[in-house]
């Protein structure tokens, strides 16, 4: 076969197959514009099927009659192809725009649904104060109604809107004022309706910025906080009333407490006078000044004197604490050597240590002079050491250590006594509080000793602390400043 004829056969078959495939292309219902495009492609392919077939028929010697029509077919091919390409480009642009539009519509529907379902009032306000969009809550709140065109809302002037309750400004003026602001959060505005009802709105604003242009208006969102404000005001009023009650109760308690302290101070003072008489006369009788005493008489008189002494100690404690609490204690500041003072106190108490068979040791570590009230310090040390001895069994020990530091002096009283339960440690300095020992028995005394120690230490600008382990012993530490503040 002639090679040119073979090329024509291939051409005819190729365009024929292309024609067949194009005819078989499905045209969807949703894209009806594909049908004319397909038709143009069919015609273009058919033209060259015709050209190829005409050449084949000519080479094979069947006929040359079709040759004159080949030129028409070839001239039509290019415009058809051009139309096809431009149509396809247009269709694809149309489809892209259509899907963009659908996307925008879906987004808009979603946005409108969110805005309408929102519990907050939301509206769009132009710069001139016109409301161009408002959801149901916003329309109800401001009494907005559609304008003649239906697209905008009028702002009725009979609804007042302003920063203060009862402000005389129309909604339009109030909104114009808001729109002139930039981003705003938590601005409270009041709306007063024609009926006189006023509601408080918590307003937030965001400007509507078009790309690269001045804001065309603002999105105004608000929540009705009338009820919340009312509850808050009620709550504040209730709190104020309760606070006033508490202040009054507190004042009455202070008066009662002062009266109690005054009573204790006076009564204790009045008790000391007859007690001194009882102790004095008991001593005189025991000395035999009023004649010799029989054995039983002496024994009972000694019981009277011992009980009187205990009662006197109790009264003295009560007087001390009452004086401290009422601020009537006086202090006399002198240069004092804490070490010598502690040694002298312990020396005076040595008979007690011997009676109780307790080993008492005093140590001094460093120079321990300080400016303080020596009598008050001695009283504190006496109470702490006496307390340690009282709660230490025979054969035990009490160790007193005086230590000088640059700005303070510490006096530590440690014992091998019964110790204090952890939960009781915070209570040891409370007045009239006596902790039960390990056997559950209440110890002797008034329960004022450690409270007096604490008050006196604070009076001297220092402090008393305690560390204790139940069953092992306790350590009380008195800290005093070298110089009073």
């Amino acid at each position: 076969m002639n090679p040119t004829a073979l090329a024509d056969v291939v051409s005819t078959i190729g365009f024929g197959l292309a024609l067949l495939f194009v005819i078989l292309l499905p045209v969807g219902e949703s894209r009806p514009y594909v049908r004319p495009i397909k038709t143009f492609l069919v015609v273009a392919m058919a033209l060259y099927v015709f050209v190829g077939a005409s050449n084949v028929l000519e080479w094979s010697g069947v006929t040359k009659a079709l040759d004159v029509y080949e030129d028409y077919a070839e001239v039509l091919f290019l415009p058809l192809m051009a139309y096809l390409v431009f149509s396809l480009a247009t269709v694809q642009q149309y489809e892209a725009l259509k899907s963009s539009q659908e996307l925008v519509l879906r987004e808009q529907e979603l946005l409108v649904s969110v805005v309408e379902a929102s519990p907050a009032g939301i509206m769009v306000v132009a710069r001139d104060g016109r409301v161009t969009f408002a959801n149901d809550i916003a329309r109800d709140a401001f009494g907005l109604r559609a304008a003649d065109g239906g697209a905008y809302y009028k702002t009725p002037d009979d609804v007042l809107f302003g920063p203060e309750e009862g402000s005389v400004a129309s909604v339009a003026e109030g909104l114009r004022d808001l729109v002139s602001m930039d981003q705003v959060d938590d601005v409270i505005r009041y709306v007063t309706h024609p009926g006189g009802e006023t509601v408080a709105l918590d307003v937030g604003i965001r400007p509507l910025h078009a790309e690269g242009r001045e804001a065309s208006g603002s999105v105004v969102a608000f929540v009705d906080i009338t009820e919340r404000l009312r509850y808050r005001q009620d709550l504040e009023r209730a709190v104020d009333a309760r606070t006033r009650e508490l202040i009054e109760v507190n004042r009455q308690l202070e008066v009662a407490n002062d009266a109690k302290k005054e009573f204790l101070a006076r009564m204790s003072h009045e008790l000391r006078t007859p007690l001194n008489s009882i102790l004095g006369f008991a001593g005189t009788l025991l000395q035999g000044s009023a004649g010799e005493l029989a054995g039983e008489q002496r024994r009972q008189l000694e019981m009277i004197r011992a009980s009187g002494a205990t009662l006197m100690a109790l009264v003295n404690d009560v007087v001390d604490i009452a004086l401290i609490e009422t601020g009537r204690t006086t202090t006399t500041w002198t240069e004092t050597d804490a070490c010598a003072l502690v040694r002298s106190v312990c020396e005076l108490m040595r008979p007690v240590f011997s009676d109780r068979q307790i080993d008492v040791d005093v140590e001094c570590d460093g120079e321990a002079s300080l400016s303080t009230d020596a009598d008050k310090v001695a009283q504190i040390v006496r109470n702490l050491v006496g307390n340690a001895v009282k709660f230490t069994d025979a054969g035990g020990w009490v160790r007193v250590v005086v230590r000088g530091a640059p700005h303070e002096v510490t006096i530590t009283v440690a014992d091998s006594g019964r110790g204090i339960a952890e939960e009781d440690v915070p209570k040891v300095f409370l007045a009239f509080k006596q902790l039960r020992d390990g056997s559950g028995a209440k110890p002797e005394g008034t329960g004022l000793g450690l409270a007096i120690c604490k008050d006196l230490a604070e009076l001297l600008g220092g402090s008393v602390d305690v560390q204790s382990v139940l069953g092992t012993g306790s350590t009380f530490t008195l800290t005093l400043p070298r110089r009073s503040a």
Partner: protein
Amino acid sequence: MYQESEIVDLLMALFLTPIMFVAFRRIAIPGKRWFVFGYLAMMTGFVLTIAEGFYLPDILNFLEHVAYALGGIGFAGGAWSMLVDAREGST
């Protein structure tokens, strides 16, 4: 010699082809490269059919027919790709 219709074909090809290519670049269709190949083969045929009137008539005439054959193959390939894509998309 050349015919007037062949000159018209060539002029139309020279005028429309650049515009069509600009538009065609934006189109996304299956078998796009087959169609471009087929179209260029057809354009080559248009040039050769005029050239054969001046030089090497036998060889250029043969090459013209070969160009049309290649054009047929290109369009067949493009149409087949479209058909396959449409059927896969519909299943």
